[in-house]
């Protein structure tokens, strides 16, 4: 195809604008259709009239015609800039990456905590309902907590993981999903996931198993300090959380590369 060279220039400009390959292919295919329509238009009488307008100015009308048609489509650099702008404008989060990845992670984490707390409350409510009405549980069933030490240990350990792992993981996943859907610069989710990892590094949970007469307890808090002992506690948790975040980003980047964007059928 004659306009192959321009396609390559356009593709490279679009890639520079951070657009995903699938979108680039779709856009180039439609521009190709459009270019062919412009060529067809040239062969009509109206097209011939347009051609006459510029022919006297240049002795090589074929080259001029090609240039003219390409100019009608738009300069590759300007077109790529506009396409990237429109692509990122698809959602509020894409339009405002600073808000999404710098201000957003902590409120998002809080929202995830609330969602998981509600889910936990709902599950325990259903279990207690089933236990009371189907299994015949009563206060007397759990009168002696020492009888359930293993159950308590397992459930509290799971709860500890549930509280510490799932909300930040969900928040990181949402940040990566936003990055992929808006084809943003990959450094934005890195910023967001780093902030989440800092918070994860400071998480601290503790629990006591209930034994007669002591009641059990579960605590979630932030371990904030400046000592080297604190740093030794913080760094492994931070590193693990950040690694998981980076893995999610890497996975999102791969998905972005493989996605195929086609018109809905």
């Amino acid at each position, binding site marked *: 195809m004659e306009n192959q060279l321009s396609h390559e220039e356009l593709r490279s400009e679009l890639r520079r604008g951070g657009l995903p390959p699938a979108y680039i292919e779709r856009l180039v295919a439609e521009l190709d259709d459009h270019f062919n329509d412009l060529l067809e238009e040239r062969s009509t009488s109206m097209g011939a009239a347009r051609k006459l307008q510029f022919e006297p100015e240049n002795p090589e009308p074929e080259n001029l015609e090609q240039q003219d048609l390409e100019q*009608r*489509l738009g300069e590759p650099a300007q077109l790529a800039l506009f396409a990237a702008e429109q692509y990122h404008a698809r959602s509020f989060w894409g339009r405002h990456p600073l808000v999404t990845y710098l201000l957003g992670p902590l409120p998002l984490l809080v929202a995830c905590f609330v969602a998981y707390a509600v889910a936990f409350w709902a599950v325990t409510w259903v279990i207690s309902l089933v236990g009371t009405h189907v299994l015949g549980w009563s206060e007397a069933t759990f009168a002696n907590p020492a009888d359930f030490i293993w159950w308590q240990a397992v459930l509290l350990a799971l709860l500890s993981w549930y509280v510490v792992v799932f909300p930040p993981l969900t928040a990181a996943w949402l940040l990566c999903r936003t990055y992929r859907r808006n084809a943003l610069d990959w450094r934005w989710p890195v910023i967001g996931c780093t902030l989440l990892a800092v918070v994860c590094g400071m998480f601290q949970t503790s629990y006591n198993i209930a034994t007669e007469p002591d009641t059990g307890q579960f605590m979630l808090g932030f371990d904030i300090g400046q000592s080297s002992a604190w740093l030794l506690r913080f760094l492994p948790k931070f590193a693990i959380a950040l690694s998981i975040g980076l893995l999610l980003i890497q996975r999102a980047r791969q998905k972005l590369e493989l996605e195929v964007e086609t018109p809905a*059928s």
Partner: protein
Amino acid sequence: MTKKPNPDYLNGVPELVVLQLLSRRPMYGYQLLRAIEKSTGNVLEFGEGCIYPILHRLEHEGHLASRREIVGGRSRVVYRITAAGRKRLHGRAAAWQSISAAVNQVLHGADDGKSAVA
């Protein structure tokens, strides 16, 4: 024959025009551009390639739907407006009419907002 960019205050106008024209009938990109030229008397002009990113964004937002179809013996991506697109069109059109009326009032009216022409 490089096309002059339209002024900044026309932000959002191409979207309004696209939705309005597609609300009349489904069209592919080239057809839509010619319809814009015809219906605006060539007042609204931009790099023709720019229409596609706008169409793709509107499609992503659910205001348009697209399908590859054979038109005139060639395969083309035809866009049509959705119910959500019609709703957006009504909102945008009302906003535009109110802004345009307000600007006209400033341009043609006296300081108190009343028409200067008796």
